[in-house]
């Protein structure tokens, strides 16, 4: 019996019934997982990763149905099991961790109670024993003060803590298989790193097998032994982590890796290569390879003639690829990753100058009748920055660092409390957007984060762009339709798009329309607040390239706000790293991404999951939570979590801003040369490889 895998999915077929008929989301999928093994499933959204997970636990919902195949788990076929038999398996032998921890936790029960339920229900453990085990488990997921946490309600915990609780809940019964569906997607990069490390460690201790679903190749590389790459409900390539990342054979896998902005990539040296098109609907499944229409290596006749079998490559039995040309394609090479200083045009003057900018949110009512006075929230504190004309200034930091507030002040949706912002020499920091002149409004436009809310669902694309043209340029109606067509062309959309409403558009298309709308007034500055963070990597690459091209063609200055250091490294000329409303480090991108680092920058960089199993930098894990915005430390804001804290001076005195080079400023008590001595470079290939 030892030979049988723990989980053996054979020819699984899943359909969703919709108004338009039955959608074969997964036509025929087989995979197996041995005890204690971790398999990652990657792919763009809509390629069926989550459906596989949900089929295994049979949570497909009303619309989904398993139409064929077997799911053998510990020798039993889950597809034919009765509900009560399933219930006995779920939670005990088989546990699942979802993306949104808040949705998995009951908000009206203490965390402790929810944890204790698992052993009490599944094993009939006594309340006392269950409590002991829950506390021990909380210790294992590295929550400080487990007994105290037991008494808390979910909303009293941070996102990272909540996800640890969910993981503890999944592991408390010692399941043989743990399914994790995008477990770190909503988390900040430092928190994500800590959770991934935790998963790795727990896996070794508990010998649970893991099915790890993620769109992030980096986190899969950190956690898994094997990877399956999914496209349109099929596994197109699978192999060990090393095989997949060092020698990807399927064009889709290569595409995913090529479009990924990594820490060592720069827009001047290695352009991102987006995968053309988008994931096609499961409605019309072509004969042969599902990826054929987006594939650069497609050969008509062979690729589209019949079903493609998964074949072994390079004599490695574990590495299988569903591509007829897998053996013919040249070996994949990781794109250049040596970051050498590049020649670039001399800096023009700054177009935006942020000086001593402070933004404080006052509470609606200062005093409450009962309880203490509500504190005011300091979102930005003495921020100094400049955006150079025709270049990209990236602002990076974790959630709550004030980067979006900065964007709102720049765009006039919020106004500065003190200090100011000049746009082309005109003070705009204290001007709300309706107080700005038409000329000023035209100069600075914004691209927003959420593709689903950036366009009005009631208006057509054409109306959205035409209205912007009319308002910002005052065009006559005849010119407008020409202008709309031209702008759609700039953002590489077909002119026919103008008649469509947003719900017929994909996320990437919506963001392109938003960019076209922002371009309508031919602005000098575009402030983009996380414009690609909601998009798939393949689409993200295309949008980033588009922003780059627009900058080159129109001389637009870009203020790019992001939490993704890879994207920032790729796109930016200058970077500002923000923490709790202050600028920790600011400078030219290649300076910021090389030592000396601000300790916070160092922690951020080391936390980024890199899609390369051989990439092994010493991780700097940040302790403790981010202080609340109303209890910012008196001295250095980072002092409470800083791994390089030097002493009381950090807590008491705000750090000096050190000008370490003409284009690098760091706010830290540790002198620059000392930082340089302490730190190793975190970007680029480790020495001795390639």
């Amino acid at each position, binding site marked *: 019996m030892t030979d049988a895998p723990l989980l053996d999915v054979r020819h699984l077929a899943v359909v969703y019934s*919709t108004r338009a008929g039955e959608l074969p989301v997964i036509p025929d999928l087989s995979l197996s997982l041995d005890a204690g093994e971790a398999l990652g499933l990657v792919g763009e959204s809509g390629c069926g990763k989550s459906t596989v997970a949900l089929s295994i636990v049979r949570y497909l919902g009303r619309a989904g149905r398993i139409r064929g195949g077997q799911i053998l788990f510990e020798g039993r076929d889950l597809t034919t099991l009765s509900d009560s038999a399933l219930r006995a398996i779920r939670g005990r032998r088989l546990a699942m961790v979802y993306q949104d921890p808040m949705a998995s936790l009951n908000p009206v029960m203490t965390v402790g109670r929810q944890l204790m339920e698992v052993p009490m229900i599944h094993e009939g453990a006594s309340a006392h024993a269950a409590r002991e085990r829950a506390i021990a488990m909380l210790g294992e997921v590295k929550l400080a003060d487990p007994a105290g946490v037991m008494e808390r309600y979910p909303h009293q915990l941070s996102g990272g803590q909540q996800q640890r609780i969910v993981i503890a809940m999944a592991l408390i019964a010692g399941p043989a298989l743990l399914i994790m569906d995008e477990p770190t997607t909503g988390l900040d990069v430092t928190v994500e790193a800590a959770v991934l490390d935790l998963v790795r460690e727990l896996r070794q201790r508990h010998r649970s097998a893991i099915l790890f679903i993620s769109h992030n190749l980096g986190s899969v590389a950190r956690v898994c032994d094997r990877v399956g790459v999914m496209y349109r409900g099929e596994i197109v390539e699978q192999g060990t982590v090393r095989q997949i990342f060092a020698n990807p054979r399927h064009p889709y896998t290569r595409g995913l890796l090529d479009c990924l902005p990594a820490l060592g990539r720069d827009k001047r040296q290695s352009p991102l290569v987006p995968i053309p098109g988008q994931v096609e609907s499961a409605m019309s499944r072509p004969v042969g390879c599902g990826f054929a229409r987006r594939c650069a290596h497609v050969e008509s006749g062979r690729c589209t003639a019949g079903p493609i079998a998964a074949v072994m490559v390079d004599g490695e039995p574990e590495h299988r690829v569903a591509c007829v040309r897998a053996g013919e394609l040249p070996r994949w090479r990781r794109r250049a990753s040596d970051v050498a200083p590049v020649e670039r045009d001399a800096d023009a003057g700054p177009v935006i100058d942020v000086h001593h900018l402070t933004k404080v949110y006052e509470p609606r009512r200062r005093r409450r009748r009962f309880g203490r006075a509500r504190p005011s929230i300091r979102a930005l504190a003495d921020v100094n920055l400049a955006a150079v004309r025709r270049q990209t200034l990236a602002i990076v930091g974790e959630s709550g660092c004030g980067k979006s507030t900065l964007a709102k002040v720049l*765009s006039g949706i919020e106004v500065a409390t003190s200090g100011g912002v000049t746009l082309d020499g005109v003070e705009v920091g204290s001007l709300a957007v309706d107080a700005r002149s038409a000329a000023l409004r035209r100069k600075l*436009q914004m691209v*927003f984060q*959420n593709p689903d809310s950036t366009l*009005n669902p009631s208006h057509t694309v054409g109306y959205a762009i035409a209205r912007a043209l009319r*308002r910002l340029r005052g065009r006559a109606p005849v010119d407008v339709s020409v202008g709309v067509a031209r702008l759609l062309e700039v953002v590489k959309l077909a002119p*026919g798009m103008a008649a469509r409403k947003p719900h*017929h558009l994909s996320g990437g298309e919506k963001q392109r329309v938003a960019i076209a709308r922002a371009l309508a007034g031919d602005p000098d500055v575009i402030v983009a607040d996380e414009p690609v963070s909601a998009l798939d990597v393949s689409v993200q690459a295309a949008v980033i390239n588009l922003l780059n091209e627009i900058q080159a063609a129109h001389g637009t200055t870009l203020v790019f706000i992001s939490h993704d250091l890879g994207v920032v490294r790729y796109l930016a000329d200058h970077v500002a790293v923000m923490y709790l409303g202050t600028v920790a480090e600011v400078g030219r991108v290649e300076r910021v991404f090389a030592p000396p680092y601000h300790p916070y920058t160092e922690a951020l960089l080391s936390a980024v999951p890199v899609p390369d199993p051989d990439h092994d930098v010493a991780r700097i894990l940040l302790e403790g939570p981010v202080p609340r915005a109303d209890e910012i430390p008196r001295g250095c804001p980072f002092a409470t979590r800083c791994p390089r804290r030097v002493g009381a001076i950090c807590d008491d005195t705000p750090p000096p801003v050190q000008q370490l080079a003409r284009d690098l400023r760091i706010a830290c008590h540790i002198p620059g040369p000392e930082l340089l001595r302490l730190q190793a470079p975190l970007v680029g290939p480790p020495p001795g490889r390639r």
Partner: protein
Amino acid sequence: MSTPVIADVLSASPPATTRLRPLARWRRRIAVLGASRPAAVGLAIVLVWIVLAILAPAIAPYAPNASDLTALGHPTPSRAHWLGTDHLGRDIMSRILWGARPVLVVAPLAVLGAAALGSLLGLTAGYYGRWVGVVITRACDIVLSFPVIILYMIILAHFGSSAWNIIGVLTLTKAPIIARIVRGMTLDLREREYVAAAKMRGESALYIMLVEILPNARGPLIVDMCLRTGYNVIIIGVLGFLGIGLPPPDPDWGGMVKDTYGMMMVWPHMALFPCAAISSLVVGFNLLAVGLRELGLRD
């Protein structure tokens, strides 16, 4: 969540490229409604009443106010009078058919009035917030806290009861409810990024409220308007029953009940048939509302 599909029902935006002609577009809208059984049944009931009301002059067997003296002795349903006659010998079926006409004009008009006034109030309250919002919501709360029947009696007794006055009081008393719904939606919608984008291009507050926000609030608004129309039918009936409804002698369902409920023990059909007419129309509007909501919640 609820907006897109209802928006589909209303605008039935053609998928991508094909542009449909108006007739085909209406057919599509109806077809979407067919996806929900309550919506289909509700729509059918309402449509049947509308057709009956329009055709009343042609299909009603008698003039609504004509007395058949021969029927006075035997007012119960007969071959000559399918639903019987009332205490004055008037044909109940003809009166019900004719009575559908004022109800189907007054109830929807009052709802439209309430929707217009309520939307404006709700948009203003939600968009500006702060003291403007407080003043408007408090004013609405005051109207809502009044016992409405007493309010109707005071106003209609003072101004006299006519169709226009009934529309007026219904508008005034229903607008706060609509305002509350629209305000809630506005509070959410004004934070959307497309509203920020509109501000970035210097749109006026009025444009943002009417063009950017209101169209996206229409889903729940239309569900509520359907429901409200049904309730208005009841209120019109109640007003007729209290004798302050549409002026006699023209048939009015509530008035018909009022005139005959005293004879309930002897001739129940005189009051029950008009009651059934009111109920069926209300049930029709309610089912339509439920169905629309169901369609909105689906996918």
